[in-house]
């Protein structure tokens, strides 16, 4: 998976590498494409879109090799951080067995609010703790902190990491935002539950404010996505104004749906949309030539699944009908037949060459 947050704002206009994005002028098209190629865990659009924060730490801390010398890595880490000053990497990468990255992440992570964990008591709260936050799924509590204490291996590694951090702190006076070391491994993705946040110079470093900051960063990244989605939001700064724009956009879309349904109701004396006749008369003269191209694949006759829809019609029958549907079906045969083919399209539709054709015809 690619980074959303960082690349979104900058590379929005360079999308269009995929053919289905072409006509849709969404600025985030490129990222969405990349997100599609990433592995959504449960296949839903949202989790793919979410780009859950990287939880490399869990992987890292479970991996055995984390004993490389911190000194040589620290320079590399700082260089990396210097180059990407303000990005928090939300799309989680697959974590390669790279000991440098492992060690870096191990060093840069601590338990958040780990009042019960042994190492936090040893480390004074004023030292720069970094927060390990569990990312939210859409359904889970966004602010729950991980119960890491129960995991002994993780604890051990963190003890080591906090000691290393103390040494590091003595060497360096300030801390910077962590880039999650995974900027180099941007291509593959694997969802890891921890976000590494570093305290900026001069900021409060207790665990609560760090957690707050991590949460705010998550929200800000999502807001950036929203900003790119809603047209005209890019130039606006400030959450309230952006929210205003989003609200007005959603309202206008909902109003459009209302008006369009009114239009459709006015156009048809009875709501029968005979796609067959639509296509027959429209193929030449449509302004929006996309529509027939979209509808055409749906009309491909597929006889086998014709029986699928009948049970549902039966259900509908039993609920509300006075007149039998079956009788009606016989009469306008050419009306019903294409509809059935339309409806029964789904079974075989998603296979084979049809799919690629459909993808090429974009709306």
């Amino acid at each position, binding site marked *: 998976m690619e980074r959303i947050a960082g690349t979104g704002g900058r590379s929005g206009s360079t999308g269009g590498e995929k053919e*289905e994005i072409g006509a849709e002028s969404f600025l985030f098209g490129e990222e*969405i494409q990349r*997100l*599609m190629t990433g592995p959504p865990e449960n296949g*839903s*659009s*949202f989790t793919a*879109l979410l780009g859950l924060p990287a939880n490399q730490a869990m992987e890292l801390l479970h991996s055995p090799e984390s004993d490389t010398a911190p000194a040589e890595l620290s320079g590399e880490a700082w260089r990396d951080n210097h180059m990407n000053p303000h990005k928090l990497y939300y799309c989680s990468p697959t974590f390669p067995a790279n000991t440098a990255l492992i060690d870096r992440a191990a060093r840069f992570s601590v338990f958040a609010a780990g009042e019960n964990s042994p190492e936090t008591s040893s480390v004074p709260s004023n030292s720069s703790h970094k927060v390990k936050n569990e990312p*939210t799924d*859409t359904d889970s*509590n*966004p602010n729950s902190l991980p119960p890491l204490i129960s995991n002994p291996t993780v604890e051990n590694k963190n003890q080591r990491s906090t000691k290393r951090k103390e040494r590091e702190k003595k060497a360096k006076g300030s801390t910077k935002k962590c880039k999650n070391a995974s900027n180099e491994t941007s291509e593959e993705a694997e969802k890891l539950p921890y976000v590494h946040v570093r305290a900026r110079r001069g900021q409060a470093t207790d665990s609560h404010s760090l957690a707050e900051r991590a949460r705010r960063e998550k*929200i800000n990244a999502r807001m950036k*996505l*929203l900003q790119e*989605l809603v047209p005209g939001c890019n130039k606006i700064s400030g959450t*309230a104004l952006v*929210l*205003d724009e*989003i*609200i007005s*956009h*959603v*309202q206008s*879309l*909902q109003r*459009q*749906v209302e008006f*369009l*349904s009114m*239009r*459709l*109701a*006015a*156009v*048809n004396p*009875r*709501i029968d*949309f005979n*796609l067959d*006749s*639509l296509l027959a008369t429209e193929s030449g*003269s*449509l*302004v929006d030539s*996309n529509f027939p191209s*979209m509808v055409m694949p*749906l009309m491909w006759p597929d006889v086998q699944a014709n029986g699928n*829809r009948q049970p*549902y*019609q039966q259900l*509908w029958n039993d*609920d*509300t*009908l006075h007149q039998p549907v079956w009788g009606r079906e016989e009469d306008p045969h050419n009306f019903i037949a294409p*509809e059935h083919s339309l409806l029964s399209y*789904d079974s075989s539709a998603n296979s084979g060459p049809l799919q690629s054709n*459909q*993808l090429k015809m974009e*709306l």
Partner: protein
Amino acid sequence: MRPPTSLKKEFLKKWIMGLQLCSSSKKEMSFLERKKAIKLSADVAMASARNATTRWSRALISNASKDDSNKGLVECILGPESESLKRASMSLVLCNKRNRSKKISRKSCSIRRARKSSSQMVMASSIAKRLVKKRTQVLKSLVPGGGSMSEFSLIEETLDYILSLRAQVDVMRHLANVTELLNRK
């Protein structure tokens, strides 16, 4: 994320099916009835195109199925997954009730707190926070099922909702244009 074209196709498929069922049930429908039927089947089709993976879709479906007259239509559009989807949306409703009671108690606490601090100097950050809070309230009222979401999930739901709304509007507009052109001929 599903590519936009397949979303539109699914939506169109389910929508046409729903409309067919509506028209097959009643011979004569007034203008408003037709409009309602169209909009309802469009909304339900859009929500089911997401297969109840998002909260707003589940809330939409549960709202639509509350009305008994729509129930049959909703079930048909949802198709084979209707039972599991209904169960999912019912659980969502229950969660809403729990969250609502929690929120009421939280609000009463915060009101007490706010009265204490009102005498102090009003900072710009608090003004900004209040503005943002108001707008999130409005957004919650717009997005279906938004009342019980945290801020973070609200933003994600809005994202998905906007995408689906766009697809819906596109498909509807195309269909409207086509039928109008047809009628003119």
